[in-house]
């Protein structure tokens, strides 16, 4: 009896010991693994930091210049503004020919964003849920428009919108930017919609929802983040494009990016003003990027990550 007990105790002790040692080992292994991945060593931050410094240096230089007076910019190279001034920003915010550039840009970008996402939503639903005659060809054709060089379209756009008397209107630029933004929105939204199980649609239809009511009440809230990301990318690609926007506008709808080229005057370049205008164009992107940081790769990859 005693022998049996002893043996059992031994076995239990041995088991406990082995458990202890195995869990100890696995913890150790996990800890090593953690070091191995991501935080490879305590020097993991060196590469990202160097890269970010490389990225920020030119931007810092622009911001630095925007707070300097022109005489300081030209006379000596200073790493920070010795006589900080807000003169450059004051000119932009008080002179209508400057700030209207920002307003024009924002107007056509927002019009474009609304049009692109509104027409892309049903189309993306069709592509993600149904097969239909010529769907693959259509999808490919949309892609080619995203890839088309704007330079090819600059001249025909100018003539097309002249014929309709739309030159120098916001709607002309907004429509022209649909060329690349609608395909982009379709691709991104299709990516997000394919992630929603089809059973949801079927259940809703059985419950007696009509298609428009289902789409607005149930489906759109489900892909809300996708809609946000699509809006952001339409906003962004319309905001950064210049060639078409500049070709289609003369004065009334001229985007800020084109207004910026005016800084050459009789007294030479107004570098401070140019820099201040440039800094202000960075702000919209910098503001919204936080909200899409986890989706930005997906957007650039046309919804395919």
């Amino acid at each position, binding site marked *: 009896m005693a022998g049996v007990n002893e043996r059992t105790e031994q076995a239990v002790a041995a088991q406990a010991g082995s458990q202890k040692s195995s869990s100890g080992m696995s913890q150790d292994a996990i800890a090593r*693994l953690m070091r*191995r991945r991501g935080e490879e060593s305590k020097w*993991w*931050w060196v*590469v*990202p930091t160097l*890269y*970010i410094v490389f*990225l920020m240096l030119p*931007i810092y*230089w622009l911001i630095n210049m925007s707070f300097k007076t022109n005489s300081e910019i*030209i006379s000596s*190279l200073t790493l920070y503004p010795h006589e900080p001034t807000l003169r450059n920003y004051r000119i932009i915010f008080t002179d209508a020919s400057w700030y209207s550039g920002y307003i024009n840009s924002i107007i056509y970008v927002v019009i474009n964003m609304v049009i692109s996402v509104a*027409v892309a939503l*049903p*189309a993306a639903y*069709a592509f*993600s849920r149904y*097969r*239909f005659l010529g*769907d693959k060809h*259509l999808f*490919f054709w*949309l*892609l*080619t*428009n995203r*890839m088309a060089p*704007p*330079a*090819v*379209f*600059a*001249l025909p756009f100018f003539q*097309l919108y002249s014929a309709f008397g739309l030159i120098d209107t916001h709607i002309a630029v907004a*429509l*022209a930017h*649909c*060329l690349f933004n609608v*395909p982009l929105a379709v691709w991104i939204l299709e990516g997000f919609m394919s992630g929603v199980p089809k059973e949801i649609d079927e259940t809703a239809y059985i419950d007696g929802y009509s298609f428009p009511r289902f789409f607005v009440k149930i489906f759109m809230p489900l892909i809300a983040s996708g809609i946000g990301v699509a809006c952001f990318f339409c906003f*962004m690609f319309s*905001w950064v494009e*210049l*060639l078409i926007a500049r*070709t289609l506008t003369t004065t009334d709808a001229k985007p800020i*990016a084109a207004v*910026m080229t005016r800084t050459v005057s009789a007294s030479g370049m107004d570098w401070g003003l*140019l820099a201040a205008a*440039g800094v202000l*164009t960075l702000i*919209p*992107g*910098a503001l919204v*990027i936080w909200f899409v*940081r986890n989706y*930005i*790769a997906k957007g*650039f*990859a046309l919804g395919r*990550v």
Partner: protein
Amino acid sequence: MDKTWNNKAWFLVLPVLVLVAFSAVIPLMTVVNYSVQDTFGNNQFFWAGTEWFEELLHSDRFWAAMGRNLIFSFIILAIEVPLGIFIALNMPRKGWGVPVCLVLMALPLLVPWNVVGTIWQVFGRTDIGLLGYTLNAIGIDYNYVRDPFDAWMTVIVMDVWHWTSLVVLLCYAGLVSIPDAFYQAAKIDGASRWSVFRYIQLPKMQRVLLIAVLLRFMDSFMIYTEPFVVTGGGPGNSTTFLSIDLVKMALGQFDLGPAAAMSLVYFLIVLLLSWVFYTVMTNYDAER
């Protein structure tokens, strides 16, 4: 997901079709129209047949711009892709470093393209720019306005600055999707850092890398605004890429016929590349 065959889905696609047709098909028809006609002004057009295309395909100017553009695209890819992979591998996977890295790295992607040009134009100037001034101060003769080599360097560094983050973000998205179990298995097998990269990380990044390479190739093939602002295509013609040449011809000189012919050839090349992109990508999707 299996999709139902339903031709009524066409009604959902119709708005997109109409809109994109308006902004793509009509302009393209205009281009086709011009490419086969000659004009002496006053809206009088004459049939020119394939004259412009023959002229274009025998013009040194077109092939030189094409050559420069191809060289540019290959240099860009050779720098940005390995650099992007390297940075993505060294990015933190968790903690406060992740959002900071993502946001700061994505910032150049959101800068309007001509402001990118302006930033580098100012940054590279020898009198008021930090880069140009420093390079000259340490004894390197650098002037992107006069020297073609320096102009190329500036345009390439600018593009690396502008777009490497795209490769980084895509690769990073691929890397974080690798489950821990893969690394644990590699650990047990005693795999080296290189074999982890070669047999686990690289295959998992294949798909995003494909997208990154093709996007970067296409976008660098139609680059216009950034080099135009920095160098204006100069000095001489040394940084005149296809788009810059085309805009010069179409909007600067209003040579409608030759410009239209060039647009079509350019567009056909891009179409071919898009087709390759699409086929490779859909094949890849099908395999998975």
